[in-house]
């Protein structure tokens, strides 16, 4: 690895580390995401009357809707923190490429998202006795969350700089993220129902292509979003 690339990854690592250690001390973001996610699941329990028959087909939908809603809390919080205390300006002053900041924030958002999922899944498993620990389901979860934070981090960094702030993020994010939600939902459902992998593969392919294309766009566009 060349020296430049090494420095690049080191800088990303520093930002991720900063976010994780700040979160470890305050636990504001994770706890609010987590409690919110559990509340959403409880609401779904009554809204959909999750009895044993429909549970098997509804599980993926309930989980993805939960993660999508809880995710906006985390994204808003993570970027609002930077903006409010002037940390973003400080980060921008650092002599690193702007995309480092984007990838750093995206990775820490992904970690938060995965942590919340890692706690919600066993709880869901416990509450509804649906076994969720299937390798394909976990891969889908990773790919879907990745697509979610790739676009979400970019849009959240735009949303926190507007007058309407927090309320704007879901409005900006959901219509753009809908392909991720549809394909992640269908793929998760497929794995949980035990469909053949060949039937599920097209959904996984959409997720991978979406993740790659939007990572590339965000990589280029982030410069214009934080420019002063």
């Amino acid at each position: 690895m060349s020296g430049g690339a090494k420095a690049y990854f080191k800088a990303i690592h520093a930002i991720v580390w900063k976010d994780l250690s700040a979160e470890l001390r305050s636990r504001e973001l994770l706890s609010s995401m987590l409690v919110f996610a559990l509340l959403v699941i409880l609401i779904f329990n009554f809204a959909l009357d999750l009895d044993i028959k429909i549970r098997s087909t509804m599980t993926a939908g309930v989980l993805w809707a939960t993660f999508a809603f809880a995710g906006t809390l985390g994204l808003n919080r993570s970027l609002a923190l930077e903006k409010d205390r002037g940390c973003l300006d400080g980060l921008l002053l650092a002599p690193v490429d702007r995309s480092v900041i984007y990838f750093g924030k995206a990775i820490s958002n992904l970690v938060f998202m995965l942590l919340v999922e890692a706690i919600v899944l066993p709880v869901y498993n416990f509450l509804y006795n649906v076994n969720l620990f299937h390798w394909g389901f976990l891969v889908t979860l990773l790919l879907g969350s990745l697509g979610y934070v790739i676009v979400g981090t970019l849009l959240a960094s735009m949303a926190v700089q507007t007058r309407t702030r927090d309320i704007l993020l879901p409005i900006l994010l959901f219509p753009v993220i809908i392909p991720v939600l549809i394909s992640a939902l269908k793929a998760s459902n497929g794995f949980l129902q035990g469909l053949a992998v060949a039937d599920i593969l097209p959904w996984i392919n959409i997720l991978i292509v979406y993740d790659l294309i939007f990572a590339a766009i965000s990589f280029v566009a982030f410069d214009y979003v934080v420019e002063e």
Partner: protein
Amino acid sequence: MESTPRWLKVLDYITATMFIAAILMVFFYAPTEAVMGAVQRVFYFHVASGWVGMLGFLTTAVAGVVYLKTSCRIWDIVGLAAVEIGIVFVFITIVTGSIWARPVWNTWWTWDPRLTTAAFMELIYAAYIMLRQGIDDPDRRARFGAVYAIIGFVSVPFTFMSARMFRTIHPVVVGINQPGSLGGFDMTPRMLQTFLFSLLMFTFVFADLLWRRIRLGLLADKAAQMKMKRNE
């Protein structure tokens, strides 16, 4: 205040004449479709307004890329103008589509990929307008608008693909996309001529509206500058 450019006036007249001609063609030149009857005539303007909607959103995405490259104010005005036209015409497409769908499919709405995509497109560009309204600094508004226009436009094919696969893996109840399915029909030469003329006419409408809306944007800019000068 500067007067309307001569070529814009000419374009107005051409568009208006074509519009009347297209309406006459739709009602009197094109034959009545054998199965669906008179309601099928909505098809000519339905597809044409959908075409204008897509043209509008494409223009915005392209204008967004050019704006980010050049930071030239005019491209932001072009982008906003095209989005406004796109939203209106996709809405017209949805309404005319529902009018057509009601007698033919016996429902106002289905979750067909095209309908789904149209609905999400409207939401994306409504979000675009809301994003712009939340930003006071014109420079930042233009940059954020451009970025969101690009992201939104790139996501549209993904939405279409996933909405289409959503149906094909499931049993298809109302096969709208399959050839020869409910609502499909073969066009006679007269129908084809009417259809192509409607497309051309709507493209002229798009150009005319876009030009006028861009002029309005430029004038609004000028008015804002004058206001600032007076306040100084």
